[in-house]
């Protein structure tokens, strides 16, 4: 006999049918998620490419009167102003990256690797600055760094006795360097978060081995510490490069007033011009140029991430590491940290409070103190604009947090758990929105729902903003959930399966409870990012869908500084509370892991 012969058991029809149903259900889930991702991600890219080939002076790209043409490309690529804008963007990005990384590396080193006092406080203060939306940082520094009446300038002139009527300087925030400075300050918290883990997890014994081998401090840093940290630093650098290329708030608030254009503001001006008709064709062509600029580094970033995993610098093992003793440098280190906190957190807060309390902006003085009142806040309370904006902002924040996180969990589960050959492609698809600058997502979503307004009437409501923000933050939520699900041993799900649980029961009773802490943390983060986002809210705004960030910008643009400051304070109250909640939530998440 041979082993091929097996018992003559009748094939029961029941399990066969169940199997077919099961496969369809799973296919539906994967297919549905992919379709949703394609709709959210590929749709915008497609419409941009389409629009860039249409001549659209005053027309919509899909209207019959707009002819196919290459003129947009000729206008964009043959115009010297394009190269000025690209050059501006490059200088702007390089300057802001250099400054923010210098500050963030110094802070991360001090907090994680030295015996500087008040470590936890410093950590909390650095992260709290995440709660200052870029638009508010821009406005605050517009007030602080105004060459004539900026508080910092007035104070410095007073100290150095150079205060004459009509005197200006020494700083002018409305300049290229001013813009770079403010951009860098707003990028420090995220940069710090991206690199601090690597500083913390780096095995100090690597450095000790170098020291024991006879290396000096500088040799150790150059030959051991930096190469070991290089993957983490490089990946943070490229991540932030994309951030700075797409950054919009500060080029808008500070750059446009000083006549400096970067790619993001250029797209905005073409798509949402101040007076005049939008030229979507040119805007789309610029968007494609910008997408190419951002996508290159990002593809490289993906490769680094893959390699960084192999490097394995982050061991996650518990080890006590010896901290570098600052000794006599300690007071200077503390002073440096204090200066940073002053510039990033304290001064912007104080100037907003001050500005909101006086009827017309003036430099703080004893005389001005008499005019202090809460009128601006009383006006806010009476303003339907404000209450609508507040409500819209909360609705959008909650809706985006839930939507983006759900898409993130569904996508991440497919990417991490299924061994389909599509998993990798789905991962890349979910990652593309990170390379798509906000102005591009905003413009393309605007175009899509103008076209589809008869079938999906979201144009002009807050829901178009929700769709755009969900698209943008899908890459972040997928990344967060990829990490969370990879941490869960697959055996925990398999054990449930062998115990007789069906897919829904496994998801509800095992997977969901286990990923709850990172899920909530991610939802908080996306809520925070959504409500501080100005780009999408501004491009997609309508009188019915004003958000707080847009209202702040409009008041600022109209010169109503006290209203601007009062709304800014309300917004800060929310965002600062969120950033502190985030810190606590991540602490809890760490503890349960």
């Amino acid at each position, binding site marked *: *006999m041979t*082993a*091929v*012969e*097996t*018992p*003559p*058991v009748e*094939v*029961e029809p029941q*399990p*066969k049918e*169940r*199997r077919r149903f*099961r496969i369809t259900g799973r296919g539906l889930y994967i297919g549905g998620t992919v379709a949703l991702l394609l709709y959210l991600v590929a749709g915008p890219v497609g419409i941009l490419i389409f629009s860039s080939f249409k001549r659209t002076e005053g027309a919509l790209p899909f209207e019959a009167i707009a002819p196919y043409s290459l003129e947009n490309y000729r206008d964009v690529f043959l115009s010297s102003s394009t190269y000025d804008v690209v050059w501006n963007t490059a200088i702007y990005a390089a300057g802001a990256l250099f400054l923010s990384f210098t500050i963030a590396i110094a802070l991360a080193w001090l907090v994680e690797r030295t015996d500087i006092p008040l470590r936890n406080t410093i950590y909390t203060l650095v992260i709290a600055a995440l709660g200052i939306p870029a638009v508010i940082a821009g406005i605050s520094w517009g007030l602080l760094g105004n060459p004539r009446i900026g508080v910092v300038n007035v104070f410095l002139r007073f100290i150095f006795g150079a205060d004459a009527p009509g005197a200006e300087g020494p700083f002018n925030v409305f300049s290229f360097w001013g813009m770079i400075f403010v951009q860098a300050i707003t990028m420090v918290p995220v940069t710090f978060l991206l690199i601090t883990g690597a500083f913390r997890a780096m095995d100090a014994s690597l450095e000790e081995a170098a020291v024991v081998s006879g290396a000096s401090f500088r040799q150790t840093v150059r030959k051991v510490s930096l190469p070991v940290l290089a993957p983490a630093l490089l990946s943070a650098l490229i991540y932030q490069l994309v951030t700075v290329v797409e950054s919009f708030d500060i080029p808008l608030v500070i750059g446009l007033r000083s006549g400096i254009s970067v790619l993001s503001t250029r797209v905005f001006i073409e798509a949402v011009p101040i007076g005049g008709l939008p030229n979507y064709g040119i805007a789309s062509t610029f968007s494609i140029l910008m997408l190419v600029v951002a996508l290159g580094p990002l593809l490289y970033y993906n490769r680094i991430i893959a390699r960084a995993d192999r490097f394995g610098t982050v061991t996650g093992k518990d080890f006590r590491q010896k901290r570098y003793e600052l000794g006599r440098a300690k007071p200077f280190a503390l002073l440096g940290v204090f200066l940073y906190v002053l510039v990033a957190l304290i001064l912007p807060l104080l100037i907003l409070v001050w500005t909101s309390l006086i009827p017309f902006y003036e430099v703080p003085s004893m005389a001005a103190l008499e005019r202090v009142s809460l009128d601006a806040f009383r006006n806010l309370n009476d303003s339907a604009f404000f209450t609508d904006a507040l409500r819209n902002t909360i609705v959008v924040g909650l809706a985006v947090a839930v939507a983006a996180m759900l898409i993130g969990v569904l996508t991440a589960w497919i990417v991490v758990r299924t061994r389909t050959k599509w998993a990798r492609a789905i991962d890349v698809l979910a990652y593309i929105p990170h390379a798509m600058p906000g102005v591009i997502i905003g413009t393309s979503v605007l175009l899509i729902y103008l076209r589809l307004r008869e079938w999906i009437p979201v144009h002009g409501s807050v829901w178009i903003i929700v769709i755009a923000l969900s698209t943008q933050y899908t890459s972040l939520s997928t990344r967060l959930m990829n990490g969370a699900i990879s941490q869960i*041993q697959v*055996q*925990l799900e*398999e*054990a*449930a*399966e*062998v*115990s*007789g*649980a*069906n897919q829904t*029961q496994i998801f509800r*009773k*095992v997977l969901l*409870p*286990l990923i709850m802490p990172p899920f909530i943390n991610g939802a908080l983060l996306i809520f925070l990012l959504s409500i501080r986002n100005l780009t999408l809210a501004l491009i997609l705004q309508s009188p019915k869908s004003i958000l707080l960030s847009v209202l702040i910008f409009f008041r600022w643009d109209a010169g109503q500084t006290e209203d601007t400051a009062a709304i800014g304070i309300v917004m800060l109250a929310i965002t600062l509370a969120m950033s502190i909640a985030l810190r606590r939530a991540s602490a809890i998440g760490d503890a349960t892991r």
Partner: protein
Amino acid sequence: MFLRFIDDMISVANLVKEFRVAEGIKVAVDDISFQLKDGEFFTLLGPSGCGKTTTLRSIAGLEKPTSGVISIEGRKVFDNKVLVPAAERQLGMVFQSYAVWPHMSVFDNVAFPLQVSDNKPSKAEIRSRVEEALELVDLGGLGERAATKLSGGQQQRLSLARALVRRPKMLLLDEPLSNLDAKLRERMRSELRVIQQQIGITTLFVTHDQIEALSMSDRVAVMNAGKIEQVGSPRDVYHDPASAFVADFIGGANMFEGTVEAVEPDGSATVKTDIGRIHGRGLHGLELGHAAVASIHLEDVELVKDPSAATDRANVLAGRVGLGLFNGPSVLYRVHVGERVVEAHLGGHDLFANDEDVSVVFPKRHVRILSRESKAWTFEDDPDMQ
């Protein structure tokens, strides 16, 4: 012949599992067949990567085989038309990592299989069955504790209680002891076997540890590179290995390669090797002039100072002690014989000095002469099946 299979708890026939990897296709399980009888403790033993865990996971329904047939109690759960999902196979499984759900209490972990079943028992019955299962594994009274507060050994028992609570048709154990420390592992070996015999459940056990396999099993299947090399009782696979791989993998052995010089009618054979002629018991189709291996377990080698003191004069070789490692109950000697090193496990009281000249004795009844050509095991080789 078919009738015989109806009694089988589990039947695996021509199971193949291929994985797609970067370099092409890797065959993890290469056309293997075996059966488990009701109540049997059956072990798949082999080095890591030999396909034993893939086989177990295919039976559990966690892996979809490429081809083959798997039946449980005569019902096909896998062939080219049928794939019964893991949740409906009515099995209990203990994972190497225990897979204890950290967000549930001990009680909730064990109650889970009952709570998700289609005909969920009453609350009172769930309670009594969970407590019964916890008693069985000696965790009575710990139900309310958080699962993560248990020690490694306790989590292991919890995992076993969870696997047994819905009275499954069979129990699958995937290297359940490998995460425990040495002492606990030894104790769990006997406890696991006692519980298994107490409830009489058919058990498939997967391990790379030959001591676990030999001490716990009714039958052992030795796997190598996706194939089964031999199936038999622990004594069979230890004393009568079917291949050089089995001889080497189980218990470790001194192996000497050479060519067959003589095969006697009584089954004994002689191999010419580079340390001289070795006589022993010939196993499995030796042919004159063909490559063969003489193999002897370390503890069967004798060392004597005077060659005339040897109990068996068939194989006596001159050697010199290179190294002696004392480990309490025994001493491991490495003895140079010509260009080769012979390893010998001697009682802890035997004493030889380094560089001392000794006679190395291979008692003929302990030397196995095996064909060099490793071959896949077939049903005909299993004494239980004949």
